[in-house]
């Protein structure tokens, strides 16, 4: 026992976080790239909205990037996710291209949903993203259904079910977690708890201190993780995904995080203090935390980080240009996709 832990300590020092043991420098560099990509995508979307290029509304996940990436990192490309109204980060983390995402936000035919879905229904089915969802908890039973499919088809797929803290008080949450557990389905429930369901804090809305505590009611493991720490999230996700793939059933992960922006574009931030927001931005920003770890463990230096940033700037600028240049749908085609077009 002693020898074993010693030899393990030699190859995998205990003070090295999971991600820096599990992933290659190239993979870690790509994680950073995608974190930037999410943030710059959302900042670009916000800017385009302000300029009147995007209509409707959007829900930004700025500040939650580590959670999206940490959860998706251990997935295989044909594993699936369901996402939420705050789903841009999940979409990018699961492998979507930002040019087609911008095109969707601009309502263009080149968008992932051909301009029919917009921000709230962004999806990339080819990468296993079954879609964001405009209904709080709407995606939870759908994820469990996809997991039932995977089990029936014996295809080895695992489904990640993202939802927010608000969803944990919906009936669909209860029904879905119960069924996933009794049938030991390969699904991982990921509650991204950013502290507020619109304006209502979890303290005011939820009877338990931690949403993960609710896992006990469904006889599944409940895991609390620092959602702003990429490595911590990836470690929890990895364990839950492996458990699901082994056929041992679901896990509920509570990823505690914070959204820097308001709930949506109508939010005046009256329900939280500037001090609270500033503290999360300045002391607990997930990208800054990951950058410092990359430096600390010798993966990237300042120049390397700058290089990643610059490449993302170009990708975002090109993507916005692609969206602007793409064609609008023909208004006569408004009824397309309501039903499947059957061959005559």
């Amino acid at each position, binding site marked *: 026992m002693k020898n074993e832990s010693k030899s393990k300590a030699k190859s995998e020092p205990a003070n090295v976080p999971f991600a820096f043991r599990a992933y290659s420098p190239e993979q870690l560099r790509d994680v950073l790239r995608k974190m930037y990509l999410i943030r710059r995508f959302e900042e670009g979307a916000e800017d385009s909205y302000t300029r009147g290029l995007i209509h409707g509304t959007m829900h930004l996940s700025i500040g939650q990037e580590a959670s999206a990436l940490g959860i998706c990192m251990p997935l295989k490309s044909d594993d*699936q996710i*369901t996402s939420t109204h705050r789903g841009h980060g999940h979409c990018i983390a699961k492998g979507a291209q930002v040019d087609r995402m911008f095109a969707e936000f601009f309502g263009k035919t080149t*968008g*992932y*949903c*051909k*301009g*029919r*879905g917009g921000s709230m*229904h962004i*999806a990339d*089915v*080819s990468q296993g993203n*079954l*879609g964001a*969802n*405009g*209904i709080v908890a*709407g995606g*939870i*039973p*759908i*994820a*469990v*259904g*996809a*997991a*039932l*499919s*995977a089990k*029936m*088809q014996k295809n080895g797929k695992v489904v990640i079910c993202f939802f927010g803290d608000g969803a944990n008080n919906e*009936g*669909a949450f*209860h*029904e*879905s977690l*119960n*069924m996933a557990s*009794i049938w030991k389905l390969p699904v991982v429930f990921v509650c991204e708890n950013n502290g507020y369901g619109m304006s209502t804090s979890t303290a005011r809305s939820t009877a338990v201190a931690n949403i993960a505590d609710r896992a006990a009611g469904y006889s599944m493991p409940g895991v609390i993780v620092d959602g702003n720490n990429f490595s911590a999230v990836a470690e929890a996700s990895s364990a839950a995904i492996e458990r699901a793939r082994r056929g041992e059933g679901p896990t509920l992960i509570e990823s505690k995080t914070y959204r820097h922006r308001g709930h949506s574009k109508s939010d005046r931030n009256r329900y939280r203090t500037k001090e609270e927001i500033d503290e999360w931005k300045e002391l607990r920003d997930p990208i800054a935390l990951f950058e410092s770890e990359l430096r600390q463990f010798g993966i990237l230096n300042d120049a390397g980080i700058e290089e990643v940033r610059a490449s993302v700037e170009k990708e975002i600028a090109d993507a916005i240009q692609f969206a602007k240049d793409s064609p609008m749908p023909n208004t006569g085609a408004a009824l*397309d*996709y*309501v*039903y*499947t077009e*059957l061959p005559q």
Partner: protein
Amino acid sequence: MNSAVRELTYSQAIQEAMAIALESDPRVFLMGEDIGVYGGAFQVTGDLVERFGSDRVIDMPISELGGAGLAVGAAMTGMRPIFEFQFSDFATLAMEQIVNQAAKMRFMLGGEVSVPLVMRFPAGSGTGAAAQHSQSLEAWLAHVPGLKVIQPATPHDAKGLLLAAVQDPDPVMIFEHKLLYKVKGPVPEGHYTVPIGKAEIRRMGRDATIVATSIMVQKSLKAAEILQTEGIDVEIVDLRTIRPIDRETVINSVKKTTRLLCVYEAVKTLGIGAEISAMVAESEAFDYLDAPIMRLGGADSPIPYNPELEKSVVPQVPDIVAGIRNLVQGRR
């Protein structure tokens, strides 16, 4: 076609359709409350669990919203679920998944997915089950683009429409009237389909058209026999599908008979009869009308428990007879 035709009940016909679907397509599975060893609240699934196993005939917890969502998710990812609601009234518990998810998923995702989902709803009054177990809510669902809604009136159609629904790439909602479950009729053996979106003329006539749905087709046929003895010749259109409506069959029939009575069990106000009436009034058939379009539907009331009261709030054969007499009086 060498398949024999037997007399089966409506529920046997549905069970046979499900058995054929389970046998012929590994993607098909059944899900619902007490559909396994219990055999379903109305014994429609019967012994299918013994033939196909509990992995394909899945007893789920009493969780209509979650269960409906599971069916949507499974349909989006390669399966072909047939989901049974124990009573159509319980659709109210699952409306989120039916209306916001199943109906819209393909559209919202720009055609990147389809939702080949079948949902079965035992519907209607006449069983003494009172207000929360007797409703006819098909118009609720027919109001939602993205869904198809069917109401088979005969054992033949119950089987053929269900098999068409299982093949359909989009969500199909089937409303089965509970009083039809024990009605017998000729049903061919083996696989066949009845097209969704096609009405059927059950009886040819010259003096008036009845457009009826579900059990009201049977009641209208009885009314037509009585009216025939009075020299009134009624044509009966069994709508079969209420979304999409077979416009052509209805309009052609009205042009021929010049009179229209819509008969349906659901609450008359804002129901399928209003849609049919407006459709005809807006069409070229309007110029052929010799009488106002009339509707017979359920009262603006929940379904009462007392059996006499229960009968009084939905159209009965004498109501249909009287309705047609009034319609044709102008000419006679």
